[in-house]
């Protein structure tokens, strides 16, 4: 597998071609599923040959990497910026807000990472799962099972808001999802 930066170095024209391929593949992968979308379909959607797709991406894996890596990097940056030690209440809210904003910036990629078994079992999907687990641990540290359940539910609820409404209602989702996540964390009387 290669990272986006390691595929064919694009000239201006090639960059546009690569972006068109990435856009078409993102849409097809998220609607049909990664495993069920051959590169031929991506080529057909753009009216180009499969060879033209392979000119820009050596394998389907590379195309998936080009689609999901920007979000994974954003989450890496988000996690790297978190100070050591337990989060304050404000820190938890800020982490939730930034996680929602990251997912909401790429709703189709969020669908792929969370609703596509083929992607979830891919190394890139496993990288996302590890990031998500780290975020949950930061939001709900400690040994209390109820807190752990509540934290998992808060993350799941906000993710669903992005998956179901992120594309059609991009302006409403971040604020509403943040309110939802805080309501879940507070539902046991704890302060988020």
């Amino acid at each position, binding site marked *: 597998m290669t990272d986006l930066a390691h595929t064919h170095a694009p000239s201006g024209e090639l960059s546009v071609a690569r972006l068109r391929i990435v856009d078409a593949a993102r849409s097809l992968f998220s609607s049909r599923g990664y495993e*069920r979308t051959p590169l031929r379909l991506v080529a057909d959607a753009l009216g180009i040959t499969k060879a033209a797709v392979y000119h820009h991406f050596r394998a389907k894996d590379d195309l998936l990497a080009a689609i999901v890596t920007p979000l994974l990097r954003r989450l890496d940056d988000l996690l790297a910026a978190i100070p050591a030690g337990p989060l304050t209440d404000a820190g938890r809210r800020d982490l939730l807000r930034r996680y929602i904003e990251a997912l909401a910036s790429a709703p189709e990629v969020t669908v792929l990472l969370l609703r596509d078994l083929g992607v979830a079992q891919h190394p890139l999907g496993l990288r996302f799962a590890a990031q998500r687990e780290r975020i949950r641990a930061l939001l709900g540290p400690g040994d209390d099972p109820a807190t752990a359940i509540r934290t998992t539910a808060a993350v799941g*609820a906000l993710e669903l808001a992005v998956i179901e409404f992120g594309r059609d209602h991009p302006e409403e989702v971040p604020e509403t999802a943040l309110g939802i996540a805080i309501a879940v964390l507070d539902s046991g009387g704890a302060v988020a």
Partner: protein
Amino acid sequence: MDPDALVGRVADVALSCLVTKGYAATTLDGIAEAACLPEAEVRALVGDEEGLMAHLAGPLLAALGDVLASAAAVEVRGPASLRPLIEGYMDALVAHRRLVTVVLSDRAATTSPAVGALRRAMLDLAEQLARATGDRVDNRIRAASALGAVHTAVLEMADLDAATVRGVIVDASVAILLT
């Protein structure tokens, strides 16, 4: 083995295959092999792949129908009015956890009409809850997310104490709806 027990065994093996291999890679001959049964016998029991999916989906679809009927009649007067609905929904999904995993986590499975019917029932419930709580876009997002909290519990909390999960998740879902 009597036919009911045989169908139950096929269903059990099929659900294991669906969860581990995914819908796209699950075939009747693979299920027959895993169940140590002749493929012809499996076909005689369930028909084709979609017949099997319809068989698997039937009980959950019926349970969701009951929840939908309750939701259609609900008048939201506070947490107490919503709690039985969420409990009923969660209990229905927990009783069919492996099938729910396929329905919610395997995008390829959406091509199955039986899976599509289950997903529609879940969406219908979200829409009814949204209507009951205000019917604006944010109500719709909250309703979907309230069910999303239940889905997360069903998919990701199978190893935790069931009573604790149920209590916390129902509280959380009701809190989302009433935010």
